[in-house]
Each structure stands twice: as C-alpha cells, then as structure tokens.
C-alpha cells in the first residue's frame, strides 16, 4: 500500500464514532521504496484530492519525509517530485492499520491492505 492509497482509506465499521474513522494509524510498519513513473500532470491533479495534513503526518510518523505545513499553492517541479516520492514511491509492505475511533485493525500483508469487515461490523 502506497501512501496515496492510505490517504484515501478510512475505517468503515458501522459503529465507528463519527469523525474518528480517518486517518488510520499505521503500526509496526515495514516500508519499502518502489519506483513509480513521474507524471507532473498526474501529481498536480492529485494534490487537491489528497488530505495534505494526513499525508504530511503519515510521512513524518513513518520517517519518510518532512513535508511543508501547507501544501504549496503553486507547486514547483521540485515540490511535485517530492509529493510523487512520498505518495507514490513509498509503500507499506507489512503493517497494521488501526482505527483511532473504534480500534479496528486492518492488516497489510505483502503490500495489500485487507479492508474486509466481519458481518457484525457492517
């Protein structure tokens, strides 16, 4: 799971307290760096879709990068490269994603997050 995907996933347990289902906390992470194609236009269009605060705090907590407080309003090529590196080239290989609202644990195995719930949770 790359950080771009983490940025879009939330806890969806029915009883999860509203407002607390996002973001999911990444625990016991094993990270890997992967290559992804850099496409400036793609990254530019991705920026408004990202939750910047979450990308920033996740990158910080995982020790990947120190992103600026605010997303650059007019990103330079360097900014785009940096976002590309954090969002597309950083992959969580093994980890647990924990919901801070309800405590549900979503495991990540071999880079694939398992977001399935048990039937009493939906």
């Amino acid at each position, binding site marked *: 799971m*790359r950080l771009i*995907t983490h940025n879009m996933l939330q806890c969806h347990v029915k009883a999860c307290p509203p407002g607390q289902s996002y973001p999911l906390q990444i625990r016991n992470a094993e990270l890997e760096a992967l290559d992804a194609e850099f496409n400036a236009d793609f990254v530019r*269009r991705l920026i408004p879709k990202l939750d910047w605060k979450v990308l920033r705090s996740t990158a910080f907590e995982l020790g990947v990068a120190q992103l600026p407080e605010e997303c650059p309003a007019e990103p330079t090529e360097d900014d785009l490269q940096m976002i590309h590196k954090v969002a597309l080239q950083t992959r969580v290989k093994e980890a647990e994603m924990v919901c801070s609202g309800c405590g549900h644990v979503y*495991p990540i195995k071999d*880079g694939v997050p398992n*977001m*399935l719930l048990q039937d009493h949770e939906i």
Partner: protein
Amino acid sequence: MFRYLIIFAHFHMAFRLPELDSLAALEQVNLVYDKDAYSDDHPFFIVQLPSDEDARKLARRSILIKDVIRLYADEPTLERVLETARNTPDLIGPYANSSFRFDCRAFGSTVEHADQVARIEQFAFLPAGDVRLKNPDVIFFYMEDYGTLHTRGHLPPAEPFRCMFGVWVGSGDRQLVNKYDLKKRGYLGTTSMDAELSLVMANQALVRAGSFVLDPFVGTGSFLITCAHYGAFTMGADIDGRQIRGKGGKSIDSNAVQYNLTGRVLDTVVCDIAHHPWREGEIWDAIVCDPPYGVRAGARKLGKGPKSKVPPGPLVPVKPNGEQRYPQTVPYELDDVLVDLIAFAAEKLVPGGRLVYWLPTVTDEYTHADVPLHPRFRLVANSNQVFGTWCRRLITMEKLREGEQAEEVVAIKGEGEAQAPAHAKFREVYFAPGRGSQPSTPPSERA
C-alpha cells in the same frame, strides 16, 4: 473538411462506432459523419475530418480500425473510379516525384494476383515517382467490396458492388491485441478478459497519460494492464485477496513486470464494494470493470444471512493465532451489484469521468430500459456481444459536469417497475438446463 474512408476490422461490430466516438473525444478531433450511413454488414465507413493529421490521430489508438484512407473515389465500378481519379487535381500534382506503392484489396472475395496487377496498371496515368514497397512516400489504395454471405448469398458475385480509391493516411493499433494476448500472459484466471476488448474498454474510458483509474472488481487485473498501457495510473480492489495475490510468484504485480508497467500499476486493496472503505471525494478519472455474476466470478458481499457461510462458534474477527478470519458473505444479486457500482461511481469519479462496465442480459428479454441510468450520468454507449441465449453489453457512462443535463430519464431503474430487467433473470436462464446454444462458461470467463 475532407472525406476519409475508415476500414474497420470486421469484428466486434457493435463496438466500432462507440470506439470511434471515444477516440474523437479523446484526441479532440472534429469528426463528422452520418450515422445512418454506418452498417455492421461491411467494414467501410465514410467520415469527414479536417485534415490527414486528424485522421491519423483518430486512428492511432484504435483497436477496431485497420486503416484510414483519404477518399478520392467511391463508385460502383472500376471504370468510374478511374474516371473520377483522372479528374481529381489533388492526385495529379503532388505525387509526381514521390516514391509509391499501390495496394489493391478486396472485401468478401479474393482477387488473384494477376488480376490485381491488371487493375493497378490502369492507374498508370497517375504521375508518381519510383515504386518502393517499404516505407514509400505515398500508398495508393484501391478496394473492392463483394459483400458478405449475409448480404449477398453464398457465392461472391463476379463484379464488386462498390469500388473505392484513395491515399492511405494512417492505421489503427491492432498489433496491441497480439502484444497483450492472454496466451502470452503469465498470470491468468478464469475471469481474465481478452486483450482486444480490454483495450477497447480503455479507449471507451478515455484513458490517457496521467489518468487515474480504478477497477473495483479487479480479479486478475486485465483492465489495469490495458489502462496502464495508455499511460494511466491504476488501482484495483477485490473482495477476494487470492485473486490479487495470485500463486507461485504469478500475480497482478508479475503481469505488470511482464509488460513493463510497474511504474503505473499501483495498489490493489481487498475490499467489498457493498461496504467499501474509500473516503469521500472525487478521485478517479475512470472506473473500468467486469462486475461479478457467474459462479466462478463469485458474486458475494459481506453480510450475515441464511445462506451465509457461518463458521461454528462465537463471532471472533481474529483467529487465536492473530490472523484475520475470512468474513462471512451472502450472495450478491446482479441488480444490487449494479446499483452499488453506479452509486459508487457517481461519488468517486471526477466530473466528466467515465464508468465502463459489462452488463449481462438475456438476449430475448432485453429492452433498452434494462440499462441502469443515474441522474448524475449520461449514457454514452451500449455495445452488445451475443453469446446465444444471453449477451453481455459494454456500457459506457459519463459523469455529468456542473451544469450539464442528463438527456435521458433520470432514475436508477428497478424500484416500482412492473417488468423485471433482463439481467434480473440472468442467473436463472444461464443455469437453466438444456439450453443448447449457451456457452459452457459465462462470458467474462471466456478468452
């Protein structure tokens, strides 16, 4: 505007015009044609385009176009063609010093080599330079149409119905069908979709460099591969993690390696579209998929019901060894899958984004009302592929931009309808015994 002759592959007829329209939108080409002049009976279609450059652009990604010809003559006989060519100044001036080749072809019959030469010789009045078979400056193109079994009866007539002449300007990209042929793909499943239609789907989805695409029923990832081929960044999701991970080192990821697409085939997530974990937001430019509806394609969703596979004992989400237990599922009716898919797409696509998916229907019972509509979408195309008693339709929908109006009835079909949609009975008919003409596997499971 000039006249161009499009020569389609004579295959997948119902997909040819929709693909052409999609490519015109994708390449921003001003394409004009008379829809009534189109016929599934032959591969020829005359369109108007501003320039050769536009004609090349329109064709370059096409899977169902073979060639595009700048058309100078479209006549009932060769004699008339010759006369028209003689009176076409465009043909007389510009090629005097160009190396050239002359292609003579026929549809619906074969013209012997000697007869081809005899025809070509009659064009000797055209001023041109030396013959060069490989990469000439200009290719003159003469085509005769003898009709098909379907339009003319058993034997081809002695004389063609129609003769066309022009200058070749461009080709489609049918070699991709071979490049992505499933026979050469490392990781395959029973649900993998053949390369040709997977590529057409990417065109229907207007996928281009930098597009962001999701397949929410990713399976073995056929559409991730073809969409990534065109430069899209792709993601997939499936309720069945085994499909994603594959086996013995073969997986969606290994396919991406095989085709050198690892830079764009991004993540896959195990999740159920009926209870999905994606947060709010308009994220993807296209959603391209083949929803589950067969036995092997396993249409199930999370839930507890009389038919759910309930493991004995108290409900524990995690096994004693800490591993997550495979959750219980209930059957997922096709109608519900569609309603969920379209509602999902309405939320998650960017305005102008496209949803391209397969809809199975029972042939005899299909009516246009069976295609689900949605107030936030415009129905762009509906192409039918027949498999005897039942068919599948490739549906292309485009999410409306702000201020755009749906042209059609705005409602998700289903509720309050007297007649059940033709796909509602799909399983029943499909699994009914003794239906001779039906294939032994559901469509998505056929290569």
